[in-house]
């Protein structure tokens, strides 16, 4: 109390932190600063990853928080096996050359990913954040419930880094508010350079435990983020921003994807809309670099040009739930409204939407769930006129799931065998196909896992229902 009373009111934040540090209430991590400009930017704060992992090693937490195993002794064979499998899929990765030169030992080399994203902060200004986390971890709930984590090492799938508080497994490097980037455009590149230099040290030098007995190195195996974040981090010149807006343009599009040349127009056109396994763009994966200057995040990493391109990873979950499913469900509801389905009420499009909306609300009421999207109408589907291209207005992955879930219910009760409209039939068979595939993939005993999966990922009631429908047709 006395310590608190002595804190100067003019700068209480710093004083309070000092007291908390003495009391062991705050993590004793050194915050470094970098000069990004005048005023507050003169001493811009960030935390090196090496500081984090040194702290974890000193407090005997490193193997738990970065690899998901209780001790360093147990971590070593796990990492060795990890890198054996990694070599299987990336045989020419530069890390194996380092190992054969004797520069590092793979059984003490911890793989990690970096992540960048922009969140919303005060007054909705975007806040850019760079953080790091171990590639493997404790696993997901459904993974642990199935007992797969107990399998012997050779057969063990190694847990994903999901369980545990995200603030104990993801380590912040720095955050940058948009006002800073406006004042100092070089702020983010400068910070990324600092990050890359530290990461290089962690790979080539590594860290030692206090007693000098344990030596650990770290390998940055990729970076993650949504598409805008990746474009920003890599200054990618081929990205979704290049998608042609009209049937023809003055300048031919060079490509819409940093990984391959899909979307290229002109003589050797490679349409990105071709999404089959034999598409033309498949042969161009990682063949052409998507930047003018090598991105700072890659500095010091032992990667070939091909591995540099593949370093920028795209997120399947994000692309599906916050992308394609929003288009699919919105278009599907519009297709229903525009169809000649017998049960649709006569009248305007609005009347028909109202009818679907009422079924939608009743459905969720019966499930005792309040849906994230309150109703289905022109507004929520961004469909002001029949010439518009519909897309869901929601921005949560779980809203996409609820929409899919209801769509499935609707198809079962109002479309199955009740129409010959080819689009509705396609929508319905889409839902049915996947439920059926789920059975073949999982076997019936795994229903319980679905329930656990709900807890893991929020977005999946729909699936559990679709699944039950096939397993127990009377439902």
């Amino acid at each position, binding site marked *: 109390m006395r310590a608190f009373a002595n804190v100067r009111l003019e700068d209480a*934040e710093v004083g309070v932190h000092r007291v908390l540090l003495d009391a062991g209430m705050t993590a004793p991590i050194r915050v470094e600063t970098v000069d990004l400009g005048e005023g507050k930017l003169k001493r811009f704060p960030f935390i090196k990853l090496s500081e984090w992992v040194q702290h974890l090693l000193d407090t005997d937490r490193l193997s*738990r928080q970065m690899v998901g195993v209780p001790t360093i002794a147990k971590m070593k064979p796990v990492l060795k096996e990890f890198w054996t499998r990694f070599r*299987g899929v990336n045989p020419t990765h530069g890390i194996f050359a380092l190992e054969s030169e004797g520069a590092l030992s793979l059984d003490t080399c911890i793989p990690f990913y970096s992540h960048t994203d922009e969140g919303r902060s*005060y007054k909705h200004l975007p806040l850019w954040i760079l953080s790091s986390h171990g590639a493997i971890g404790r696993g997901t709930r459904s993974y642990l419930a199935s007992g797969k984590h107990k399998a012997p090492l050779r057969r063990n799938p190694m847990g*994903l880094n999901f369980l545990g508080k995200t603030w104990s497994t993801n380590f912040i490097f*720095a955050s940058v508010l948009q006002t800073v980037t406006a004042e100092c455009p070089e702020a983010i590149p400068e910070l990324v350079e600092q990050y890359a230099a530290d990461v290089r040290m962690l790979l080539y030098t590594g860290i030692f435990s206090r007693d000098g007995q344990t030596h650990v190195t770290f390998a940055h195996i990729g970076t993650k983020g949504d598409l805008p974040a990746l474009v920003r981090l890599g200054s990618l010149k081929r990205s979704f921003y290049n998608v042609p807006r009209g049937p023809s343009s003055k300048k031919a599009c060079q490509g819409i994807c940093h990984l391959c040349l899909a979307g290229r127009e002109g003589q050797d056109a490679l349409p990105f809309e071709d*999404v089959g396994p034999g598409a033309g763009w498949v042969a161009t994966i990682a063949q052409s670099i998507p930047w003018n200057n090598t991105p700072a995040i890659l500095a010091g990493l032992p990667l070939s040009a091909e591995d540099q391109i593949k370093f920028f990873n795209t*997120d399947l979950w994000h692309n599906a739930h916050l992308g394609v499913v929003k288009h699919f469900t919105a278009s599907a509801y*519009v297709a229903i409204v525009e169809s000649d389905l017998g049960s649709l009420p006569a009248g305007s499009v609005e009347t028909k939407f109202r009818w679907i909306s009422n079924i939608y609300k009743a459905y969720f009421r019966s499930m005792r769930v309040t849906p994230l999207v309150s109703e289905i109408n022109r507004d929520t589907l961004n469909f002001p006129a029949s010439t518009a291209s519909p897309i869901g207005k929601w921005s949560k992955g779980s809203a996409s799931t609820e929409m899919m879930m209801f769509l499935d219910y609707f198809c079962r009760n109002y479309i199955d065998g009740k129409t010959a409209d080819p689009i509705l039939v396609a929508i319905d068979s889409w839902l049915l196909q996947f*439920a059926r595939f789920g059975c073949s993939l999982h076997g019936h005993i795994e229903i319980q896992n679905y329930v656990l999966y709900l807890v893991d990922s929020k977005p999946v009631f729909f699936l559990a229902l679709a699944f039950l429908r096939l397993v127990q047709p009377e439902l």
Partner: protein
Amino acid sequence: MNVALAAMYGSGFWIRREKGLRLANLIFRFLALYATCAHLTLLQRKRRFAMVPKLHMIAHSAVDLQHQAAKSDWVQNPLSLTNQMQEDYIGRPCRISRRVNIRSLHRSLIMRALIVYQHSLRNSDVDLRGMDGYSDL
């Protein structure tokens, strides 16, 4: 698609080649049906089922699974590249940032983050979930 995701959630960082190939096929079928819907509506001269770049990025995940399966018994679970947990994580610093003086936001954010970290790490010390893995080690 959701079924594919559920299968991935039940798995670890690595999945067996056969399962990886099944997942890739599932993803391709998802994409093919979407394309069918797009084609059918296009024939009616309507703008529905837009062919967006994210469809292409999803196709990359499937191609990657196939390429890895051609080389190795174990393939990387596409979910290992998801940002889902990180998005949850990003929300926290953003919430903190809305509660501090904007002029000293960056410093305050990091200092407050350290308090949360200390708390989370201590909680994690007593969380034994998943710590009994690898029965032969």
